[in-house]
């Protein structure tokens, strides 16, 4: 266990999130059982009011989750010096088996919470709350993931052993062969570039077609949703493979986190911000497609989808520009 | 919107004060770089390897060079071991010869 203020903050944060999530699921299950929109009983009124509480809690959970994602990355960066051979955040995450799992879990939870809020938003647009049971079932399914993430995170921190000086001899020898690898396996630069720009073109094309088609519902929505996830993975792989090295101007440093730091002008924030935002909006637009068959929210969904698709296109274009900028303008050459 | 403006002003002042403190900290660090360099050279030429924060026992003065496993290092009841015993002080018997 590394006893570090950042670690403490993360553990405290995940306990808070867990308590809130459990509480909202508890309320959610009561709503699933007792909900009847056609009745005006006092009980129904109480349930209706509890939906506000759950929505509020979920918004905070999402907010905390985003903060905790950042805090996790920062903390991993702050403690990398404690491990032999760890040169940056990547090294800390490699320091034991579940470092990366925790990070991925945090990202997955971020998307899941955001999708829940998207569904919730659509649901609240209709006077008959058509999705109420569905969204609380989804919520109940979300909680195990949050529990798992908290458990993994705790295990990750408990499993960390700083390579400090020990009594009989220095750590160097007791740890031989256990050194932390700092680099990530990465794709070859050229291949990654083709893949990235190809995938980006497909993504943008899909979104523009959907924007053009307007209110026509189409299986293309689902395809674009799935493709967004594919594009997300490709984008992350590309950041590791070539965007990072052009920003660092070093062909061997693939760390996807260092770009969040001051010496790179904090460029990582707009880079990841636009990517996550863009993917989120296109994913959200795809998820709510399914609910178009419900009459009371159809037109609302059309408007929402249109807005989100535009947001998604704008954000993804920003992302692609930021990712491409150093490739075009830096005088660094990866190799010729 | 008077209250909002007052509050915004308050926050802005506080934020500005913090920013000023931050700037002053950065500039102090910058100004004291020569002093730090002197300290660094002191450490280098005197071959110092530890800081003098905790001097109550030999295992705390040079944590990097202590043998922690020694039984009853300096005081049999030194339960809070490292880096300094902030909770239980050594008994007076130990202190007075």
């Amino acid at each position, binding site marked *: 266990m590394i006893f570090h203020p950042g670690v403490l903050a993360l553990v405290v944060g995940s306990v808070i999130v867990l308590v809130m999530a459990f509480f909202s699921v508890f309320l959610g299950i009561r709503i699933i059982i007792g909900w009847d929109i056609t009745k005006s009983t006092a009980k129904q009124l109480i349930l209706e009011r509890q939906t506000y509480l759950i929505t509020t809690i979920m918004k905070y959970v999402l907010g905390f989750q985003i903060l905790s994602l950042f805090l996790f990355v920062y903390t991993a960066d702050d403690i990398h010096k404690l491990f032999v051979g760890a040169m940056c955040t990547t090294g800390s995450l490699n320091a034991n088996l579940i470092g990366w799992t925790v990070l991925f879990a945090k990202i997955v939870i971020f998307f899941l919470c955001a999708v829940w809020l998207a569904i919730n938003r659509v649901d609240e647009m209709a006077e008959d709350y058509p999705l109420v049971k569905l969204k609380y079932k989804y919520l109940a399914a979300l909680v195990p993931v949050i529990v798992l993430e908290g458990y993994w995170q705790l295990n990750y921190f408990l499993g960390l052993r700083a390579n400090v000086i020990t009594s009989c001899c220095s750590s160097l020898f007791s740890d031989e062969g256990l050194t932390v690898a700092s680099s990530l396996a990465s794709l*070859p*630069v050229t291949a990654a570039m083709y893949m990235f720009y190809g995938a980006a073109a497909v993504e943008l094309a899909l979104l523009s077609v959907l924007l053009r088609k307007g209110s026509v519902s189409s299986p293309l929505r689902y395809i674009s949703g799935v493709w967004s996830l594919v594009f997300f993975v490709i984008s992350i792989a590309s950041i590791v493979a070539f965007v990072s090295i052009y920003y660092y101007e070093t*062909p*061997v440093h693939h760390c996807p986190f260092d770009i969040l730091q001051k010496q790179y002008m904090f460029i990582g924030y707009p880079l990841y911000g636009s990517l996550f935002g863009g993917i989120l909006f296109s994913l959200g637009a795809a998820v709510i497609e399914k609910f178009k068959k419900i009459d009371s929210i159809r037109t609302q969904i059309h408007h929402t989808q249109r807005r989100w698709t535009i947001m998604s296109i704008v954000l993804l274009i920003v992302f692609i520009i930021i990712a491409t900028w150093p490739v075009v303008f830096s005088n*660094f*050459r*990866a*190799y010729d | 919107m008077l209250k909002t403006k007052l509050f915004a002003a308050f926050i802005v002042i506080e934020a500005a004060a913090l920013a000023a403190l931050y700037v002053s900290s950065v500039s102090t660090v910058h100004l004291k770089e020569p002093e730090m360099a002197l300290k660094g050279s002191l450490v280098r030429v005197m071959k110092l390897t530890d800081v003098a924060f905790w001097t109550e026992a030999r295992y705390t003065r040079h944590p990097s060079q202590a043998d922690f496993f020694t039984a009853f290092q300096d005081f049999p009841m030194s339960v809070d071991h490292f880096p300094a015993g902030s909770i239980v002080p050594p008994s007076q018997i130990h202190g007075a010869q």
Partner: protein
Amino acid sequence: MLRKSFVCALLLVVISVTVYAAEPHKPSAADKCAVCGMLVTPHVKWLSQIIFKDGSVMFFDGPKDMFKFYFDIPKFAPAKTQADISDIYVTEYYTAKPVDAKTVVFVTGSDVMGPMGKEFVPVTADKVNSFMVDHKGQKSLKFDEVKVADFHSGNMDKSHADHKH
């Protein structure tokens, strides 16, 4: 004592006059590798440089890039040729000090990574054996023995897998 240093100084003058040896330059924070564009100051332990007879200097972030430049000067500096070079310095591995590239041996295939991955590690001749053992070196080459082919041998493959061409 005085006499001895006087002789030394005289010798130094004589040497510098005869071979026009220029002192190795110190890179500034803005100096970049002439081959790959990386800043060189973060990697001073690998710094290599080519000094031309007109006094200009090219910095590299490792002997590998220096050789790339050396073998393909028309590509990187069309106005110059190998004949214009006055001195080549590399940073010796064990002393971390600049030495004349002609006086050291370059070891390939070792587990010592430079800023650009696998490197031609410059080691003084007497330390080569020790280096080969400690760092699993494969080949040791004098300056004149380094060939373009060495970039493409299996020793350097990592950099190829990683970077675009």
